[in-house]
């Protein structure tokens, strides 16, 4: 591949992720509004919020790390998006693979954790402690799922995974071949997005929105951007592993949005678990399903 082509792809992929992510945020808020029997925000609301936050005149910082934390949170996702193939663009997906991607998506969380830590606010620290606990909880089913997929397709290369799934139509999709793992994956997805019932780390009524407590202005704006990326990454990763990636952009976006409808619909109809109940929940059913699925994959 010519380097200029690659450069364009590497620029476009995060950009696409951000724009699609904005639409996903809007969809999330619209779904919430529908379930709550109201109208919901206007179309460009996510964008307004971000522009407004960046446009704040005073920006309160608690120190350099507070700022670097946001840089890492956004930058980590910008980097991670180039490892996630989209139709027509593979970026550097072949140079990393799913394990690298999995670990790269931890970077934003760690960055955020650093930034929040500097704020010297226990609400934020409790939020981070819960966020990391949640990560420990949902990553176990997620890793089982990823191991299963990697063994099933015989590779950790996401481009190959997509190619193999698209080779035989729907019948070769991961979700058809490994239904149990796909279900376990949905649990992990819910945890990854941090939505109810696994929304323990923002918990406004308990810890005053946890990590976001001291974030204002563009700090919060950075987190809003990060949320766009987070939604996009989680949904596209699921699409890539189980729904055959994107044959073309229409199918790709349709799948990506459709996947998100499930966790979003669940999110607004449940309260949050306590931490230990969340761990139990995520270590019980999805792990059992995943292990059974893994046994089928292995055999």
């Amino acid at each position, binding site marked *: 591949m010519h380097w200029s082509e690659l450069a364009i792809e590497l620029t476009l992929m*995060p950009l696409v992720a951000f724009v699609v992510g904005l639409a996903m945020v809007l969809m999330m808020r619209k779904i919430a509004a529908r379930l709550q029997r109201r109208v919901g925000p206007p179309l460009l609301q996510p964008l307004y919020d971000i522009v407004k*936050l*960046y*446009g*704040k005149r*005073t*920006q309160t910082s*608690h*120190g350099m*790390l507070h*700022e670097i934390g946001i*840089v*890492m949170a*956004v*930058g*980590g996702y*910008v*980097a991670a998006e*180039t490892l996630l193939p989209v139709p027509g663009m593979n970026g*550097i997906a*072949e*140079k*990393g*693979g799913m394990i*690298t991607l999995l*670990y*790269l998506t*931890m*970077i934003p969380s*760690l960055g955020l954790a*650093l930034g929040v830590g*500097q*704020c*010297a*606010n226990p609400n934020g*620290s*409790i939020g*981070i*402690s819960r966020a*990391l*606990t949640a*990560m*420990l909880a949902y*990553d*176990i089913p997620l*890793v*089982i799922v990823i191991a299963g997929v990697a*063994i099933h397709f015989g*590779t*950790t*290369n996401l481009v190959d995974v997509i190619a193999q799934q698209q080779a035989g139509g729907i019948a070769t999709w991961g979700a058809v071949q490994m239904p149990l793992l796909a279900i376990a994956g949905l649990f992990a997805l819910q945890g990854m997005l941090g939505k109810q019932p696994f929304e323990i780390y923002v918990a406004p009524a308990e810890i*005053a929105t946890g990590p976001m*407590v001291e974030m204002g*202005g563009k700090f919060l704006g*950075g987190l809003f951007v990060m949320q766009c990326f987070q939604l996009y990454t989680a949904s596209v990763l699921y699409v890539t592993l189980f729904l055959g990636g994107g044959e073309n952009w229409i199918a790709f976006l349709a799948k990506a949005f459709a996947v998100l409808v499930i966790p979003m619909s669940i999110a607004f109809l449940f309260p949050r678990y306590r*931490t230990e109940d969340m*761990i*139990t929940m995520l270590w019980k059913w999805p792990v059992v399903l995943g292990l059974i699925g*893994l046994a089928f994959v*292995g055999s």
Partner: protein
Amino acid sequence: MTGSLDFLLLLSVVGVPLAALLAPSVVGRWLLVLLYVVQLVELALLGSGDGARSAVSFSLLGHSVGWQLDALGWFFAMITVAAAGFSAAYAAGEWGTLNARAGLSLRWLYVGLQVNVFAMLVLLAAGDMVALFIGWELTSWAGLLLMLLAGGEAIAAARRYIVYAIAGGMMVLGGLLMTLAAAGSLQFDAVAAAIPTVGTSALWAITLLFVLGFSVKMATMPFHLWQAPAYAFSPAPASAFLGAISARMGLFAIALVAIKLIGIVQLDRLYLYFDALNLRNLLAWVAVFTAILPTFVAMKQNDARLLLGWHGVGQGGYMLLGLVMADSLGSAGGLLHVFNHATYQAILLMAVFAVIHRTGTADLNRLGGLVARMPLSFLAMLIGIIGLAGLPPMNGFVSKWMIYRALILEGQPLLFVATVISTLGTVLSVYKLLHNTFLGQLRLEHETVKEAPWSMTIPMLVLCVVVFVTGVAPGLVLEYVAAAQQALGLAPVAFILGGIDSPAGTLDMIWVTAILLAGFGIGAVLFYLMGGRSRRVHQLDNYAGGHFLTADVRYQYSDNFYAGLMHRIRPWYRGSFAWAEEALVSTFGAIATAARGFFEQANPAHWVLVGTTLITTWVMWHALV
């Protein structure tokens, strides 16, 4: 000047009295650092290969004993000498001066360090099994020198260590005798040739004795209880050195015996339940549990040194796991992890001791917010924990990635999942370390704390560069890892400068790092160039539910940091500890019974103690004359 093993060993030995002579003065300590540099250069000149053979050799009870440094030993030796060098430099300046004034004997410290280096070199350069045993015992006792230095808590830990070391030494001796009986020789080649003909039961006995004996030093489960406290409470440079490399001698010995001599294929021969579980799988699972449990124990620690000590135990599990996978990727990952672990563990311990140096405590509930006062130490610890947690772009990620890949390729998804659990536990635990030390509220009594002196920060920062560079370009180290693999008789790993190039998944860290840095760059541009200027505020200007935060309020979340998680897993701790201790007790019972069979003595430990000392003295006498 060409490299010669004898010259190196001589340098090492000469270093001991030199250390005693020079350690009390600052200049002398820097000269000693220079001595390590010379040793390192000498070692580098030796080159990674089988060329270096010692001229010293003698015959013991009809078995010739000699020393030869192969690629595996060289790899470990480089790490050892470098770790000692960095530790010595760390203590050379202000740390040494101030601690000497506080009553620490620097003579002992530097002598102990040098004795350890020498002992380890003797072990690593073992040319046959007797030499291996001699080196092993030397290493074990040398370690004690460093542990005893600090006094206080360290004494109790050291006492526990003695028990373990004696037991381990006995088992190794037993294994040695069994091997002699089975193979009729103690030369590596002869043993390796004889092993395939040995019966299963004898092979079981030999393998188990060796592996268990060496595991003691490795602190694999169920021998994991001694290491963390023993290493943690030594003085700073000793702790950094011990934590970085000392325990890896066990890994070296296991690699040598189990893979080079006995052979991984032979391990597959040893079934526990028909085909279901053979010794290799058993070892892999032991390794995984060694990786998991100490990690979660570490999570509960409130002393930064202990936390790191437990991680040291846990990381050993990864290395063992990679080794017993024994395919090119896994074993390379395991060996690479030895190097990586040495680098970041040294950084972390140095950073923690820098904090202790300035604040006088390592209690994670008495620290916090130090990033504003000790930014360089913070940077070092940050890079260290990224390495320890195995996140890109630091070197820890590369070795862990290789182990994961190997596990997936070998069709071991359960081991893979278990390993990831350990990694996640590590992430949680190290964030607690970083948060409670450097982040959060700066305590009032630490308002005037200053950054650690250059003599302490520079070794950390240099190691940080190493961690980063070998993370970006792991090919630099993988070259020697591949050579070590060949020395072990394994297929060398197919590496490129940026990582691994294999058909079933590629890792190019140069790309990953570049893209990550580019991402950070974009993030920084988005953050710093867009939107208004930010203004830093005091930590009391903070959200407190609408209340005024006053100076005397403790506003820092530190104790029981993962409270939610602990609600779920706390009951499991008790279970696991009980289980581990039971296992330990019964192991001791088994050893004692076995030993009674060999020596028909009620208290074999004393005999082993006396015997080992005699043998060591004798060998030393021969070697020097």
